[in-house]
């Protein structure tokens, strides 16, 4: 592991310990009250969810058409993070929506697209786990199709209805709320980078052990 890993992990841990205190100190939003504070975890995890999905798609495409095994490991690691941050997003979202919209779930563009992206990532992991030999390419193909799907979900549900707050809400936040949001955002980003790094490292080590094992048999 690189030298910066342990210090960065400690900083990340401290930030997550401090974040509830920071969030609690920020003023209450006038209409939503306490429930609005979910937003400080929801939005960063949703961005990480999206980032992980994009990394997975790009790495899969590069693996499929270039073939470097490193790309495949990146894609696998990113797919796991997609599932992880996807769960956080999909759990915190409805908790907020229950209060804001009066419903746990609506078939809005972002909700539908997120759920679909999350399902594709779960399918990716299932293929990797239970597909047997050759499942790496299969999974890469799946990631590619999953990525191509997003615009269609977007168009189809947009035509339908949409109520999810737009990204334009972020610059309009009061300063203290914005500070708390960016603090959480950095904490999540750090966590994301650390987990991705660790997961890729683990796969590289595993590949190295495999190749050592094979060379010993010869």
């Amino acid at each position: 592991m690189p030298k910066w890993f342990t210090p960065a992990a400690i900083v990340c841990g401290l930030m997550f310990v401090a974040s509830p205190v920071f969030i609690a100190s920020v003023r209450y939003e006038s209409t939503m009250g306490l429930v609005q504070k979910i937003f400080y975890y929801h939005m960063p995890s949703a961005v990480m969810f999206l980032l992980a999905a994009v990394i997975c798609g790009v790495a899969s495409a590069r693996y499929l058409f270039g073939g470097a095994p490193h790309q495949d490991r990146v894609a696998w690691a990113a797919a796991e993070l997609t599932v992880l941050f996807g769960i956080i997003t999909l759990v915190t979202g409805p908790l907020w929506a229950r209060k804001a919209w009066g419903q746990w779930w609506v078939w809005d563009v972002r909700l539908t697209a997120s759920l679909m992206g999350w399902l594709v990532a779960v399918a990716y992991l299932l293929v990797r786990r239970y597909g047997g030999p050759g499942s790496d390419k299969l999974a890469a193909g799946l990631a590619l199709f999953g990525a191509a799907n997003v615009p269609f979900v977007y168009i189809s549900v947009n035509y339908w209805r949409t109520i999810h707050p737009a990204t334009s809400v972020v610059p309009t936040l009061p300063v203290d709320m914005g500070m708390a949001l960016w603090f959480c955002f950095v904490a999540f980003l750090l966590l994301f980078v650390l987990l991705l790094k660790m997961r890729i490292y683990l796969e590289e080590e595993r590949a190295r052990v495999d190749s050592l094992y094979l060379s010993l048999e010869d």
Partner: protein
Amino acid sequence: MLHAIWLIVRKDLTVEVRSREIAYTTLFFAVSCVLQFAFALVKEGKPPEDGAAGILWIAIAFSGTLALGRTFERERQSETLRALLLAPTARPAVYLGKLLGIVSLLVLTELILTPLVSFLFQAPLLVHPIWLFAVVISGTIGFSAVGTLFAAMLVRARSRDVLLPVLLYPITVPVMIAGVRGTAALLQPEVDLGIVRFWVALLLSFDVVFITLALWTFEPLMTD
């Protein structure tokens, strides 16, 4: 290229006409699927409102998965997929041939499925037959375009029967949304053809994108 596609379609249809295995099992499965919905949802002779479109598409998706799995299972059992891939023809031709075979099988199933759903759920599905045909066929092509690629890739995978729907259903979410919405629009008392046209256009663009993507990835995915 066209000749190769035709040969593959003809081979599949000849095998099918002789055994009738997939056509009969898929059709029977689709019918029993619709009956299950009828038992579950029709209360005191009254079908659920707006349910017919969804039921039709679920039946298409389920029976389509069955047909896709069986088509490639047959190739695997007789070790003919390797022969097919070794044939001196471009890989895209193999894909397109398989796709056409599956689409024609599914269209056959839908010819019986649609009147049945219309009859059991008292839905006026056949009022605009041409538009319904456009929605159903473009949706079926989109579903099969993804399904053919994944079913072909899964031939060598372990637990392929389980993995096919696991892969296929999340990917075909837009087809299901557009197909169900398009069909539901046709079931309204006052049909707005503009809405139907929008969903058909979306389905057609989905078909184009996914067939292109499948043709592009079929070669690297089927080589190892």
